């Protein structure tokens, strides 16, 4: 029977545990809200993983993990046309660009990261296909799932913590009037600079995340670090309307729009409460 379900009901940790304990071989397909991932397991161990239709060739992964530059990526891609990943790997090893260990550790790190990212998906459907395998010419790795499950649990906790700290991405950011820390001693990462550059009460965190292709977790993580550094604060976005609620769900009258009427109403309530 195909293993399938919803991440809400059966978490990724539970799934990986099951795959590991049952020494399963096959591909786990996870379909999230906006993207999908395929993770291949061989005898209960992680062998291969891919996000959507991303370039998952060896040269693509070497580039994405910053092992080679964009120019090197283009050059190798051109020269390696028609070569399988295994052939390309051998070529790079023979040319002394990388050791076999380098290539394996790069792939292991990349595939593990794909799985780790899946832990932050709280919603999505999955199915496990025993007959679906990646192409033969891809390089497979062999990573035990125990550590991945531990790291995943840590990320889930981090996600929950950050969600508690920053519940809504519909709020905006502004620079604090008086930064609490010494600005000269602050080192920002590339992504933090990207966010800092668009800090403005008009931009919601969601808009910033969309503009820089950041996931919910990534934008929360960056905003949290900037909040902790005392550089920014969360504010209501300027010029945006609040969520409109459906009227009439409770038998409560609208507060008078006229300010004098509102004042009069509040004064009447004050008098009454004083007399209680």
């Amino acid at each position, binding site marked *: 029977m195909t293993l399938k379900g919803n991440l809400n009901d059966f978490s990724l940790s539970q799934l990986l545990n099951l795959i590991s304990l049952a020494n399963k071989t096959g591909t786990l397909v996870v379909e999230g809200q906006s993207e999908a991932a395929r993770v291949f397991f061989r005898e209960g161990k992680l062998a291969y993983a891919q996000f959507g239709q991303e370039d998952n060739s060896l040269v693509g992964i070497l580039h994405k993990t910053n092992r080679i530059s964009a120019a090197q990526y283009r050059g190798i891609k051109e020269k390696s046309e028609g070569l399988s990943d295994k052939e390309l790997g051998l070529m790079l090893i023979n040319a002394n660009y990388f050791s076999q260990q380098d290539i394996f550790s790069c792939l292991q790190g990349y595939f593990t990261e794909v799985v780790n990212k899946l832990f932050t998906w709280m919603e999505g459907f999955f199915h496990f296909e025993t007959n679906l395998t990646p192409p033969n010419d891809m390089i497979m790795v062999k990573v035990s799932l125990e550590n991945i499950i531990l790291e995943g649990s840590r990320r889930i906790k981090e996600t929950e913590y950050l969600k*508690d700290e920053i*519940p*809504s991405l*519909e*709020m905006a950011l502004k620079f604090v009037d008086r930064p609490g820390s010494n600005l000269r001693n602050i080192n920002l990462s590339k992504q933090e600079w990207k966010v800092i550059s668009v800090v403005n009460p008009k931009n919601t965190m969601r808009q910033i995340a969309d503009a820089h292709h950041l996931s919910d977790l990534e934008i929360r993580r960056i905003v949290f670090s900037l909040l902790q550094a005392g550089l920014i604060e*969360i504010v*209501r976005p300027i010029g945006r309307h*609040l*969520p409109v*609620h459906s*009227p009439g*769900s*409770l*038998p*409560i*009258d*609208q*507060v008078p729009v006229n*300010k004098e009427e*509102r*004042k009069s*109403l*509040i*004064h*009447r*309530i*004050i008098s*009454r*409460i*004083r007399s*209680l």
Partner: protein
Amino acid sequence: MQTVKMVVTGPFNAGKTEFIRSVSEIDVVSTERRISSEAEKIKNTTTVAMDFGRITVDKQLVLYLFGTPGQKRFDFMWEILSEGMLGFVVMVDSTRPESFREARHILETFRAYAPTPYIVAANKQDREEAWEINDIRIALRLDPNIKMLNCIATQKESVKSILLELLYTILMEIERQKTYS
């Protein structure tokens, strides 16, 4: 007859039901249920939908007090309850620092629902283990402009002073809007 409402919110076991009970002229229409979860058994019952108290202001005006359910799994009720409110009180259990983060989350959620004035009531200040109000303010990372008062939800006078303070805040907000409009 005009009806208006104020909302009393806060984490589980912060004292919202007691607060409303202390000033309501009717027996609080409480939707309490026995607690089944072991983790939440610090009291016997909890509010699962809302508490509902009433104060008749005069012949034309009635004030309703709504208490939100404290447990996170009922937070879908919050938005419904926040609709059209005059303002809200965030109750914090001063003796349970582990609930402060939850209080801050609730506060921010309500602020996002409606830009109405609010105050924070540090409840159970009569207990020995209660945190100092200033320490709670820091823990909640409250803006200095936000009013935070000591509270003992079982005492009518204490609850009255919280409600009055909220009403003064609402008045100030109306005045402020007047100045800028």
